[in-house]
């Protein structure tokens, strides 16, 4: 019996293989197509005939596919030159190649959706069909999005270092997309961030990895069997993934020890304080407010200020939370939801019910809308004294 093919393991070899082809002189778009074909071939052949050295097998097959594809081209001479110069695949440049690939796929000339699609395909090794299903668009649309993205970056020097922050933003977008189709994008984002953390020593990469691990640890507890949202305070904490929390906290502590604080580390610190509380009532809200102050300093984001108002409401009471909220623009997404929550905590149930209903009308997704509608309904149908 052959063991079932570990598709994730197979895909983890993608960036290294692609890197070898590009380093041998293949242009990025053609190399990427060739690697995809090699992955498909591996899925077909390996279960019956597993290779001794999977990476070398993929390099050989992908390189052959690349040569086949360029054979008909006018690039024949160039190809023949390449064959003669063909370097031995070695692990030495693997790390640099992987990193260069992340930078390329998150290049600032790409729109966010293009960068996400290209990263999932070229770094993640997912097929166009899988990515299309995950984002609920037709396969032809996703194929075009990817090939346009490849054209956009075709002139970019492959080995030039980029800005890690752009890569992190792309990975964060993938993580936040959650789960739809047959690909768990949150798990995929964690895998890609972990892989990135292995090749680049940067506290914000570690910060993002910690943030993802800590949020993902609570994921099963966030949804009731009927699909409805369970707010943090009401979650069954025994269902949290303690292994993921332990890892997330360790990754975060190592990052914080380097004393180069960034947005993702601060967000992860807040997530860690929630994860650390045995019950919702034991949450260290005072420290959470301090982290939000750091985040405000780092980002000056109105959304962060809004979340800070919630934390202030817990740390210093709902009146203080409402005072913090009063300084913010009420057209902010989720402003009404936060206001409703604070008014409810302050005992003004009439206002809270009205605001929950308003928040439900402005909710950006179905689960949240239903959740807020239920909050409003619960207050509206409460027994009156």
């Amino acid at each position, binding site marked *: 019996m052959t063991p079932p093919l570990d598709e994730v393991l197979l895909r983890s070899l993608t960036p290294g293989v692609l890197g070898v082809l590009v380093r041998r002189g293949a242009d990025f778009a053609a190399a990427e197509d060739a690697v995809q074909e090699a992955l498909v071939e591996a899925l077909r052949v390996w279960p019956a005939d597993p290779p001794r050295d999977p990476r070398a097998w993929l390099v050989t097959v992908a390189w052959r596919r690349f040569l086949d594809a360029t054979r008909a081209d006018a690039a024949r001479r160039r190809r023949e030159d390449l064959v003669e110069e063909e370097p031995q695949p070695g692990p030495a440049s693997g790390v640099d190649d992987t990193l260069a690939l992340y930078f390329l796929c998150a290049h600032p000339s790409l729109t966010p*959706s293009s960068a996400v699609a290209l990263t999932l395909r070229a770094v993640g090794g997912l097929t166009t069909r899988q990515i299309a299903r995950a984002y609920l668009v037709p396969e032809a649309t996703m194929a*075009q999005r990817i090939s346009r993205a490849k054209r956009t970056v075709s002139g970019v020097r492959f080995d030039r270092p980029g800005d890690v922050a752009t890569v992190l933003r792309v990975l964060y977008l993938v993580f936040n997309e959650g789960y739809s189709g047959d690909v768990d994008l949150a798990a995929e984002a964690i895998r890609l961030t972990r892989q990135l953390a292995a090749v680049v020593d940067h506290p914000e990469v570690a910060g993002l990895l910690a943030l993802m691990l800590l949020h993902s640890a609570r994921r099963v507890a966030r949804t009731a069997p009927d699909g409805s949202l369970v*707010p943090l305070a009401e979650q069954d904490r025994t269902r949290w993934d303690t292994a993921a929390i332990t890892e997330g906290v360790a990754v975060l502590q190592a990052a914080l020890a380097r004393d180069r604080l960034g947005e993702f580390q601060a967000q992860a610190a807040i997530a860690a304080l929630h994860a650390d509380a045995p019950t919702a009532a034991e949450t260290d809200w005072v420290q959470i407010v301090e982290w939000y102050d750091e985040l405000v300093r780092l980002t000056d984001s109105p959304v962060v200020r809004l979340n800070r108002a919630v934390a202030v409401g817990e740390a210093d009471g709902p009146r203080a939370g409402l005072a913090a909220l009063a300084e913010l623009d009420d057209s902010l997404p989720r402003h009404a939801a936060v206001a409703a929550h604070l008014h409810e905590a302050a005992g003004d149930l009439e206002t809270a019910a009205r605001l929950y209903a308003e928040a439900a009308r402005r909710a*950006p*997704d*179905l689960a949240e809308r239903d959740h807020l509608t239920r909050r409003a309904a619960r207050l509206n149908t409460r027994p009156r004294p």
Partner: protein
Amino acid sequence: MAKYLLLKHYRGAPAAVNDVPMEKWTPEEISAHVRYMDDFAARLEGTGEFVDAQALAPDGMWVRYDGEGRPPVVDGPFAETKDLVAGWMVVDVDSRERAIELAGELSAAPGAGGEPIHEWLEVRPFLGAAPTVTE
């Protein structure tokens, strides 16, 4: 990366600038209109933004449950229904601005005299899936 519905109405939208009913166009004008719509969809497929486009027949009906073991109640079609949806296009775009830009282009489809219809399109954002990080 958000999906928007561009909704076209038979009735119910404010009047278009070039407001001549289709049956009064010339066959060439109708062909030009259809071609414009096809080209538009093909172009969006090329930009990686196309999701779906469908047209609906005007004849609809209302259907509702009528109790255990009973067939559903069917009513209509109602000739006088004020708001009648004609069809839609779904796009997946990076911003609200882009959705508005595309709706503007779709509204410029040629009608009578080969001139843009300037038809009003309803643009509705999808309620997405819940994000992984919320609090």
